[in-house]
């Protein structure tokens, strides 16, 4: 079969079109991330990257594997459901390497964060006026923070 004389320019155009399409596919291959579209219109690998971020709070379950006695003591009192790091701060570093010693918390400061008097707080929550109540004497002089007495 011979190509009609007048159709040659169409073939040249078609070849150009195919080349442009191949170039587009090659560029697209390098520009679009590998996992894009894995779950939707986004980079699927981003999910695992976000899940791999470092932790700062160890979680009370981890604390209680070593500090069993404190965990038991807490069960006796009102602070049963207050997790360790709510008062002690983030201590994942200490949990990973116990030689890193956390600094002792200042009870006077930490206790009143929750227990300072305010009309804005729910009435059932135990509150005190820090000045009238103790006059600056550290809370743990009379109270046991771990069993909330």
């Amino acid at each position: 079969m011979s190509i009609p004389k007048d159709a040659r320019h169409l073939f040249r155009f078609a070849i150009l079109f195919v080349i442009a399409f191949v170039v587009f596919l090659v560029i697209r291959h390098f520009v679009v991330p590998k996992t894009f579209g894995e779950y939707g219109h986004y980079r699927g690998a981003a999910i695992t990257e976000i899940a791999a971020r470092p932790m700062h709070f160890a979680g009370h379950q981890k604390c209680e594997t070593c500090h069993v006695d404190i965990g038991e003591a807490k069960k006796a009192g009102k602070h049963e459901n207050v997790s360790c790091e709510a008062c002690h701060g983030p201590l994942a570093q200490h949990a990973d390497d116990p030689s890193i010693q956390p600094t002792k918390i200042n009870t006077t400061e930490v206790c009143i964060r929750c227990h300072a008097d305010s009309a804005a707080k729910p009435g059932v929550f135990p509150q005190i006026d820090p000045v009238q109540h103790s006059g600056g004497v550290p809370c743990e002089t009379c109270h046991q923070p771990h069993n909330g007495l």
Partner: protein
Amino acid sequence: MNIDRRHLLVMLPAAAIAWKYVLAGTPEESPNYTMTDHWWSMLINIPKCIGCGNCVRACAAENDVPDGHFRTWVERYHVTDWNLSNPEVVSPDGGKEGFPAVPKSVGGDEGFSSSPESAGKYFFVPKLCNHCEDSPCTQVCPVGATFIAPDGVVLVDQTYCLGCAYCVQACPYGCRYIHPEKKVADKCTLCYHRITKGLTTACCEACPTGTRQLVDLKDPNDPIHTFLKTHSVQVLKPQMATGAKVFYNEMDGSVR
């Protein structure tokens, strides 16, 4: 085998559909955590909140949130009997250092009365990303850098984000900000790096009163199912039809 054009045209769409199912069945890489087994959200029990700011501090520590920006924050509402629909809302530094005490004896307001009974009511509303099912923020992203993960958490791919801040404008809850150093959108990830390892979020871990509870709606043993049946629970701005998933127990009508 002889395939003519008619048969080929019939078979091609069928093959395409079949190939789609083959791809969908590809197992996920992480063996311990299956995204499709979870649908994460959070329950906020407003009557329990004391406004201590533990959650805000914990969130900042866990996620390196820059000062002056918040992935979660606490608002204090003051609703007076005279102006029920116009609450006074304060959130000093997002409630990070707690709230100034309201004296129990005075509590007067604008000279109306000085008795605490008529001074109106106070309550705290912790806020965070609502991880909406039909989130406006993910819909406006021009590059596909923010998305709803298959487990219902709205995330930002910070390596892909341009920092155009369309999503910051789109969020009706004001839950997004542009990170001042990274220049990309940042927001609550529902501590995705913790919940995928079986832990709770930093804010829930640090909450001393149990106001915040991480919820997995796909877990049949999650106490949320009983809770939702037996309590009056709302979401923020339901009229926006965002499918917000942060549930507020006993929320006052004045909360916006």
